[in-house]
């Protein structure tokens, strides 16, 4: 008995399709089980510990602030990934350098007495601190691209990634040597210290928090305008789409990529200053974990997708702020929650919340 070859191949295709459907079902079932377990845990904890609504509101606000900082860093990952399809592993360190530059500028202004002066001078001083952080980060970001990534643009994918890991450690431990082991404590200028309580709800909002949120939103709007409206933004999108064609259209691909790095680094530098103001401590490894989390945020929203990075960052910030209390875990586990989110997203929706389906192929 001879089988009809056409029938056999149809059968095989059906078999493959079946297997794919089976794995889909398996993953969905796994997802349902995980969600049920999570909801169950949250309900149990909610009954045991009765937190007040004010507590939750406070945590959500905290999460939003943190999300704002993550968003600034996450955008750098997304911008670079969108153009080069590589993860700038050293991006967290770019943020750390920005934080240090901001710290020293702030120290300088505090010594000069600017931060205690009239509100206008103090506001200007803070603005200059952020700009100093951005400039330092831009310099580091561009140097990084020039030295560690540009020569490897055509190499196999593992090669630039390893180079990025090397750069990350180089920057971290150089900062350790140059700036010393002792943590550097941001002294908040009076203008953004303290806070307001909203009516008589008992919810307290810090001025720093509001400041961070406002600046992050302004920066994101600025980025949106640059990418969508400016000539350079158009060139960036063209290079992201197709490097060769863009080059044929007269776009200088090298300078567009350098500009992208500069843009992402500027945001990271601002994020570093904001992170310093929020956490008040700057250390050589301050950039590492926030960098990973910002990456998680970028993946959560769909890497390569700018609104996705913002959404992912805000969601991640809120999850991280609420997670430990909701799941009844000590706060030391908040890093664990962020990493678990990363793993779960990559299992269930590797293209992220707003990503295209195409992303799965690139992942």
């Amino acid at each position, binding site marked *: 008995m001879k089988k009809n070859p056409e029938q056999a191949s149809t059968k095989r295709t059906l078999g493959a399709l079946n297997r794919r459907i089976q794995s889909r079902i398996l993953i969905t079932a796994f997802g349902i089980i995980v969600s049920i377990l999570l909801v169950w845990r949250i309900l149990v904890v909610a009954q045991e510990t009765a937190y007040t609504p004010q507590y939750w509101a406070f945590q959500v606000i905290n999460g939003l602030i943190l999300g704002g900082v993550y968003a600034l860093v996450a955008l750098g990952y997304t911008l670079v990934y969108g153009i080069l399809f590589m993860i700038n592993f050293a991006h967290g360190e770019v943020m750390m350098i920005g934080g240090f530059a901001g710290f020293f500028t702030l120290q300088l202004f505090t010594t000069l007495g600017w931060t205690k002066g009239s509100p206008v001078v103090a506001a200007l001083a803070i603005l200059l601190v952020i700009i100093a952080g951005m400039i330092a980060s831009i310099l580091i970001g561009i140097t990084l691209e020039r030295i560690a990534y540009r*020569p490897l643009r*055509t190499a*196999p*994918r593992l090669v630039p990634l390893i180079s990025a*890991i090397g750069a990350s450690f180089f920057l971290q431990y150089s900062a350790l040597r*140059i700036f010393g082991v002792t943590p550097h404590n941001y002294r908040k200028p009076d203008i953004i210290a303290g806070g307001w309580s909203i009516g008589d709800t008992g919810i307290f909002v810090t001025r720093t928090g509001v400041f961070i949120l406002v600046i992050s939103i302004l920066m994101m709007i600025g980025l949106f305008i640059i990418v969508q409206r400016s000539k350079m933004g158009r060139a960036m999108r063209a290079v992201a789409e197709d490097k060769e064609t863009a080059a044929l259209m007269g776009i200088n691909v090298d300078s567009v990529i350098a500009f992208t790095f500069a843009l992402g680094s500027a945001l990271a530098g601002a994020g570093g200053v904001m992170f310093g103001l929020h956490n008040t401590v700057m250390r050589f490894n301050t950039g590492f974990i926030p960098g*990973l989390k910002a990456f998680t945020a970028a993946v959560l929203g769909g890497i390569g997708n700018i609104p996705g990075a913002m959404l992912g960052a805000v969601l991640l910030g809120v999850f991280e702020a609420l997670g430990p209390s909701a799941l009844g875990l000590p706060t*030391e586990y908040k890093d664990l929650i962020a*990493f678990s989110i*990363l793993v779960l997203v990559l299992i269930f929706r590797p293209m992220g919340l707003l990503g295209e389906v195409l992303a799965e192929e690139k992942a």
Partner: protein
Amino acid sequence: MRSKDGIRFGLITFGIILYLDLLGLPLTSGNSVTVIFAFLIGLFSLLFLRNRPGQTRTRSSTIVNGLLIGAISGVGLMSVTYFFASLQADGVRVNQVFAQILPENTGALTGLSKAQVLDGANIWPGLFKIGLAFMLAGFLGGSATLLFTEGTGGRVQRLGGSSVGHYVVLALPLLFFGLFMLLKVEGVQLGGADENILGLLFVFLFISASLFAFRDTRPGIERKVISLLLLALIIILPQLTDLFQNAVLSAVVIFVVMGLGLNIVVGYAGLLDLGYVAFFGIGAYTFGLLSAPESYILVNLPAFGGVTFWSGLPIAILAGVITGVLLGIPVLRMRGDYLAIVTLGFGEIIRLLFLNLRDYTGGPGGVLNIPAPIVFGIDLGNPKGIFYLGMIFSSIVAFVTIRLRDSRLGRSWIALREDEDVAQAMGLNLVVIKLLAFATGAAFAAAAGALYASRQVNIFPDNFTLLVSIDVLSLIIIGGLGSIEGVILGSIALIGLPEILRSVNEYRIVAFGALLVVMMILRPEGLLPSARRQRELRGEGIAEQPTSSE
């Protein structure tokens, strides 16, 4: 003519020198810092100004450019040092911003004492010395490029291929072994108080040279004789080395075992795993918790009585394999960069669990008093014993690796690394081969972990940080991805050498980082690459766009 180049290179050189100054090189090297800096400047001008193919420079322009490099970096460092010195003389504590810029740093550069710097003594003579030394170095470096005409590089390369070169390579390990033995002879004074360190260096050189010699042997009788000879020397080696040398070498072999495991995951299967330390930690903790007298399990289950090294080892390996598969399942669908970050997160999760599950793992207090391995009544709980055991482990692992590499499974891994889609289209079951890669790598790491636990006696969560993963990854990359000899060479370079270069140890991670970047740019295939990898990265492969990124 082209003085623009000189200015550009001068600024780059100045940036590097300034970076080293801020890093605290004058502080660690004392008064010899000017010489070191001058040497570096000479080297940089040699590198920058060398004749690249298709580029011709006239004699005078090269020398002028060399002078420019020296002058720019000299004037730059002079002004920076003057700036810092005047601040310090005014009583400003510069080290609050730049931790290494203490008055001693300025003193080392200008040849003054700390008190003189603080008093604001005249630093101009010292500064001019720097400037002159740098200009001289730049000039010499620039002139030296004229000696390196095109033929020289070729001549050095040819030596390796000639028959004289061949026998020199074969004799080198014996030479280093002889030098090592010479130190043992009574009355020979070499290296003085640091004799054991010098001995260690010769041992490292002997092992490294053996690797190169083995690679250079011709198949047949020559290979058999040479490898038997080298093998015999390596087997008696632990008897000749002292306690300190054995301690270092035992750490090196443990990292060889780990490196061989990661080599399978990264080098063969191409799955970039940055959380490899997790399996190492799980192996160590499994064995530790099952055997240490005060561990959670033994305290609550006295009847169990604990395991010996040999019954604990399979359990540790099994635990490693199970976690390897468990990690493997969720990351099956990921590639490259995503995989790297997720595994990194996983490694951190495991360490955080060791740290935070205080009741079970002892938290920051770690697991104490882990028993030593015992063979036929011989206690191997000393550096020599661990060294022997590590050598046996790494030989077994290397043998398994070679057999796996040449098997159907090994070829599937390489296919997977080359192109996942094509591999799947060829009918490979990606799920199975990926999980097998993770499981094999994890098993090796867990075995290394158990050995490490009994070497350390006490283990703590801090032994299992991300840095271990980075160390292992760096060593296989520097040695050459996918190459077994490369792993050994990499372990010696990254784990052994820092013990010799104690003063450099502070810069170790900085240097690693820089080394990884430089290696990726200049020699992505590693020092002792596997033949396949070398073809891939040196041949036409490098000019191609990676297909997966299109």
